[in-house]
């Protein structure tokens, strides 16, 4: 396969995943800001949404204040923000067009239809309700794309590269949520168990579709260290760091087997997977949750770079 094709497949999957993630962040923020102030405290959730999306710099260069209007505009529809939902689908679609023949009809249909329908929202949703419907639609579009890849693609290097794109983006996204919200998850947090924290923790879990999953796994009320445990170390949760790396290792391994050679990307992915498997939550808290997440984001970026050098460039 041409490295160019691999590059398009990889970024196509990454951008679709990123659009979904932005929609999840916005939905969670909308929900938490709908709570009375007494429940959630005097935090600026919209600024924290921008930080979780990783574009605080660009945002505050363009806007003075982070509020519902500016943030939804910036994260969803801004053409100036390269990682807005609008731009994610735009870039995803142009990647897809470049490798139209490497995709199945269903995949192309999913991404192209999404792009066309996006024009319908061109005039911006007029109400909160309409915006909420838009966010749901973004997530459904990503589901449709992901599902058509899963159900229709040949299991060869094209499929594996697109999976790698999904999981490296997903790992990055979950890590970013933890990075912005880590202070809420520290066990020695003073107002432990207050309503403020409950809604924040539930918000974190909702943003990765894990609120129900939490209760299935732990069968108890929300505890911050268990929330961190679920999102970092539990293989069962499809958006946990551990699960993302399980899949990254598997797919990179398949590529290595098919090509008959392996390199830094495989070694880096295995090293991170090993670190996650051999870690326990007490040790992570002992060494500092923030440092651990920071280290993970750096490791994940190193893997992205290794994949780029080895396969995409």
């Amino acid at each position, binding site marked *: 396969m041409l490295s160019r094709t691999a590059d398009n497949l990889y970024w196509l999957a990454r951008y679709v995943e990123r659009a979904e993630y932005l929609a999840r962040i916005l939905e969670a923020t909308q929900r938490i800001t709908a709570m009375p102030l007494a429940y959630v405290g005097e935090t600026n959730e919209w600024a924290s949404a921008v930080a979780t999306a990783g574009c605080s710099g660009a945002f505050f260069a363009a806007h003075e204040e982070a509020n519902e209007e500016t943030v939804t505009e910036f994260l969803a529809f801004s053409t100036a923000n390269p990682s807005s939902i609008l731009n994610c689908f735009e870039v995803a679609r142009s990647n897809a067009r470049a490798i139209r023949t490497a995709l199945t009809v269903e995949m192309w249909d999913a991404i192209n239809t999404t792009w066309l329908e996006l024009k319908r929202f061109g005039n911006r949703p007029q109400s909160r309700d309409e915006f909420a419907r838009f966010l749901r639609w973004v997530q459904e579009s990503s589901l449709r794309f992901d599902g058509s890849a899963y159900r229709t693609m040949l299991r060869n290097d094209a499929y594996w590269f697109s999976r790698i794109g999904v999981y490296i983006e997903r790992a990055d996204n979950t890590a970013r949520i933890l990075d912005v919200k880590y202070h809420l998850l520290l066990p020695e947090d003073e107002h432990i168990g207050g309503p403020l924290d409950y809604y924040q923790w539930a918000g974190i879990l909702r943003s990765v579709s894990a609120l129900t999953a939490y209760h299935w796994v732990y069968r108890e009320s929300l505890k911050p260290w268990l929330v961190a445990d679920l999102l970092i170390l539990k293989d069962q949760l499809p958006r946990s760091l551990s699960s993302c790396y399980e899949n990254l290792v598997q797919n990179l391994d398949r590529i290595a087997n098919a090509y008959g*050679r392996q390199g830094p990307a495989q070694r880096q992915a295995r090293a991170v997977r090993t670190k996650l498997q051999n870690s326990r939550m007490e040790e992570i808290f002992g060494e500092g949750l923030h440092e651990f997440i920071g280290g993970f984001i750096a490791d994940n970026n190193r893997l992205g770079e290794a994949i780029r050098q080895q396969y995409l460039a």
Partner: protein
Amino acid sequence: MRIRISHETVYRYDQPAGGVIQTLRLTPRNHVGQFVVDWRIDVSENCELAQHEDAFGNIVHTFNADGPFTELRVLAEGEVETQDTGGVVRGTIERFPESLYLRETPLTRLDPAIAEFARAASAAAGGGALKALHGLLARLHGEMAFDTDPTHPATTAAEAFAMKRGVCQDLTHVFIAAARSLGVPARYIGGHFHRNDGVVAQEAGHAWAEAFVPDLGWVAFDPANGISATDAHVRVAVGLDYLGAAPVRGTRTGGAGEALTVAVQVAQAGRQMQS
């Protein structure tokens, strides 16, 4: 190196066994230089295979098989990807301070002959724990002959050292006793070794030792081969001695006339090259 391992233990009983309980330390874990691509354990009788972790961080499976049966097979197999780290073992699960591994056990009891041997090897090697250990490794490999005849699983370090012969387990016990006598924490590693002479079928797993060197961490020494561990070594279980890291331990009711055979196959998998 990608190594494919199959480790089968077969018990045959003249009179049917009424029930068997076993504890298995057959599952390798990941660390820097070793990655388990895929692994499974298969027991020939219907039973629940419960997985947990022992105090050293080894993955342990236990099962309880109800008889009667005249044959029981336990198969562990899978694929492991390894890298040569020059013998330095990093990224392992450490639940205890290193000093715990100075503890003596019945199998690794120090006797004057081993203590004298360790002192001499260390003095000849010059200063530094690492040099002393390499000196010890070379001498032990030279002085003790590999011989499967005279020893058995319960042979102590002192007995094997007196005979100057033994299997990898005995050499490892002597190495551990000697290292501990020098004040160096040392532990027993059970695992597999891929032979580069093309021999795939082996009669048993392999064993070697790890010793703790300040500023470097745990370093693996394989006295049976006279080398530090390479990418041909797959590390499965750790313990203070053989008993702590034994692949299979258990008990049974009935089943007189038990005969045990172990078949291990360690082969290089695929045709993968490093780029």
